[in-house]
Each structure stands twice: as structure tokens, then as C-alpha cells.
């Protein structure tokens, strides 16, 4: 009797195992349907019909945080910038950027002091959204062009030292006469300058929360023309960066889409 109970138990267990192992594939075979080739599936349309996009799609205002952040991280320059951007058919974005830039820097071990008081600059231009055909209208990858202008004053002064042993002034340690000795003082404040430039822009922008977006842009800046002081080149140009034929800039912006 005990043997029969044991044999029965074994047979029940084997049956359960077979049930769980074999039944599901059988069930699956019964519900299997042949997959439809992708080319025959109804196509999802990722693009939007441009005719359905209104000409005026809204207005954005933004603030650049890179100028402040880079200064905190050690840059000699500090700038702040606000911008207004119009959205035309989600394709073109006319932009105006207004900013202030300044610097107050001593050269490392040179005694050169360069100062530009807070000075405004302006850029105007347009961006082109390369993703304007996509249905997703919260992300933007754009290229653009800017024209920039600023007019500013700059001070360059050289620290001089008095030598108590030889009882003479060393006016300029950076420019000593190697043959006759000595140097001449350099102290020019209020030199006037202005500059025109253009920028090629590549950037991305994405929605982060409701009407808030953030984005960054990389800018290649090219000097068009400049008027500078008689006694020296400017070193820092507000809105442009270091005074040279071309320069690279970055922006990191928080942008708010106005509700109208």
C-alpha cells in the first residue's frame, strides 16, 4: 500500500512538471500569429506638416549662466546676458541678446593691470532649427548667425617699484632696456575702443519643465572691424572675449517660453 501511494505521488509530480513545462509552449503555439513585415505595417509619421504650424509660435526669454559660472570657476572675465527669441513656424528664431561684461585683472607676475568697467554689448541674429520637420517640438538643434557690437573704455596700468638700495624707480619690469638700462612708465586709462564682429552658432535647446527650457551653444566669433586706443590693444572685449582675429565662446542658458 505504501508503495502504491509512493508511485502515485511520483506520477502526480511528473504530471505537474510536464504540465508546467510543456503546456505553456503549446498554448503559445495556439495563440501565435505570423508577424507582419515592417514594410507592410502602417507607417508612423514622425514629421509634421509644415502648413499646420502657425507663423508666430511664441516668444522666449532667456538668461545666460555661462558668463557668471566661468568667472566663479576662475575666468578673468565676467558677463551676464539676457535674450529674447521669437519662434516663427518652429523653424526660424530671430534673436536679440543684450549683455554686460567686465574684467579687472592683474597679470601673473607681470604687474600689468587691465580693467574694463561694466559695459553693455548687443548681438542680433537668427537661428535655424534643423528639427523643425520633426513632430517633437520640445527639442531644438539649431545653427545660427549673430552680429555683435560693443563700445567700451579700457585701462592698462603697469605697477612700478622703488628700489631703496639704488634709490631709483623701476617703472616697467616687463620692458627694460637691455643695453642702457631703465624703463619708462606705462599708465593709460580711459582708452576708447569699439568693435564689430559676427558669430557662427551651433546649439541645442530642450524643454525641461512646463514652459522652461535649457540649452547650450558653441560660437565661433570673427572680428569684422575694431577701433582701438593709441597706446595699446584691448585685451578683453565685452561680448567677444579676448581681442584677437577670432575667438570661441560658449553659452549655457535657461529659457522661459512666454504664455503668449
Amino acid at each position, binding site marked *: 500500500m505504501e508503495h502504491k501511494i509512493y508511485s502515485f505521488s511520483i506520477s502526480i509530480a511528473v504530471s505537474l512538471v510536464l504540465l508546467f513545462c510543456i503546456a505553456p509552449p503549446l498554448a503559445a503555439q495556439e495563440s501565435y500569429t505570423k508577424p507582419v513585415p515592417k514594410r507592410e505595417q502602417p507607417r508612423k509619421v514622425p514629421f509634421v506638416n509644415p502648413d499646420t504650424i502657425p507663423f508666430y509660435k511664441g516668444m522666449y526669454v532667456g538668461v545666460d549662466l555661462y558668463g557668471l559660472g566661468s568667472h566663479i570657476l576662475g575666468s578673468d572675465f565676467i558677463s551676464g546676458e539676457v535674450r529674447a527669441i521669437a519662434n516663427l513656424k518652429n523653424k526660424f528664431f530671430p534673436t536679440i541678446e543684450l549683455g554686460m561684461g567686465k574684467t579687472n*585683472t592683474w*597679470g601673473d607676475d*607681470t604687474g*600689468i593691470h*587691465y580693467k574694463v568697467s561694466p559695459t553693455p554689448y548687443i548681438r542680433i541674429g537668427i537661428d535655424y532649427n534643423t528639427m523643425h520637420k520633426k513632430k517633437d517640438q520640445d527639442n531644438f538643434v539649431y545653427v545660427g548667425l549673430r552680429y555683435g557690437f560693443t563700445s567700451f573704455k579700457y585701462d*592698462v596700468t603697469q605697477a612700478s617699484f622703488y628700489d631703496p638700495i639704488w634709490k631709483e624707480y623701476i617703472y*616697467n619690469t*616687463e*620692458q*627694460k*632696456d*637691455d*643695453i*642702457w*638700462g*631703465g*624703463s*619708462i612708465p*606705462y599708465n*593709460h586709462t580711459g582708452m576708447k575702443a569699439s568693435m564689430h564682429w559676427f558669430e557662427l552658432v551651433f546649439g541645442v535647446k530642450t524643454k525641461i519643465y512646463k514652459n522652461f527650457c535649457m540649452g547650450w551653444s558653441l560660437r565661433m566669433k570673427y572680428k569684422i572691424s575694431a577701433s582701438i586706443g593709441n*597706446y*595699446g*590693444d584691448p*585685451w578683453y572685449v565685452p561680448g567677444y572675449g*579676448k*581681442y584677437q582675429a577670432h575667438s570661441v565662446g560658449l553659452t549655457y542658458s535657461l529659457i522661459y517660453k512666454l504664455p503668449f
Partner: protein
Amino acid sequence: MYCNIYTIDPSTKEVIKDTIDTLTITALETDSIILNQDTKVTSLSLPLRYTKDTTIFVLRYNYSTKNNEMDTLYIVHKNASYFISMDCGYSMEQSITSAKKGKSTRKTQKFQLDSVAIKNTDANTDGTQNLQLFYKYRG
């Protein structure tokens, strides 16, 4: 400041390049030797003083034999320090306003500076000619 050395053939009035056999140049008011017994000299690159508006050079032609054969060259110039950048510092911009020669120590010396002409007032070191130094024709 960059100078070339010439002479004028009195018969043809032709300006021809000249060569000084041996030349030593010192700067007045200092013991610096700017050119030390250079041979076959046809051009000169000379510094101008930063802190004063006159630079005087003494040109000695036969320094080793202690013959006192020399000329003096006076340059009057303006100096202006120009700021380039925080990294590069300054450059000295010097503009020559006049140049003249002093008396030669011997009228019989072989090389004798005759006259000086300014060709370009902006002193440079890039080889652009600032002065023409004319020596007496030696035949």
C-alpha cells in the same frame, strides 16, 4: 633700427652698396658692445634707447690695431610703449625724427661716414630699411 651701407661713385653719381671690412659698434654712456669686430659688414641692426630720445653710437673701424679710426652716429627719436596683451606684454614703438653723423676722428681713415639719410621713420627689426649710411668713396 635697420641700416644699409652705401657709397656714391663721384664720377657717375651712382649709389652702390658698400662693405666695411671690420666694424665694432658701442653705445655711448654704456660699456655695451653692440657689434664686436664683425667683418664684411653691409647692413646693421641697431637698438634705440628706451628712456631717452637720443641714441649715440660709436663706430670703430679698426678696433684691434688701436688705431683711433671712428665715427659717431646720432639718432633722435620718439619712444612709445605699446600694450599688446596680458600674455605678450608690451612692444616699444620708436619713431626716428632725425639722424646725423659726428666728425670722423681722422680725415685719413679708410672708412669715413659721409652722410646719413632717413628712409623709414618707424624703427623695426624686420629688415625694413630705416637709414642709409653713405661712406666716402674709396675708389
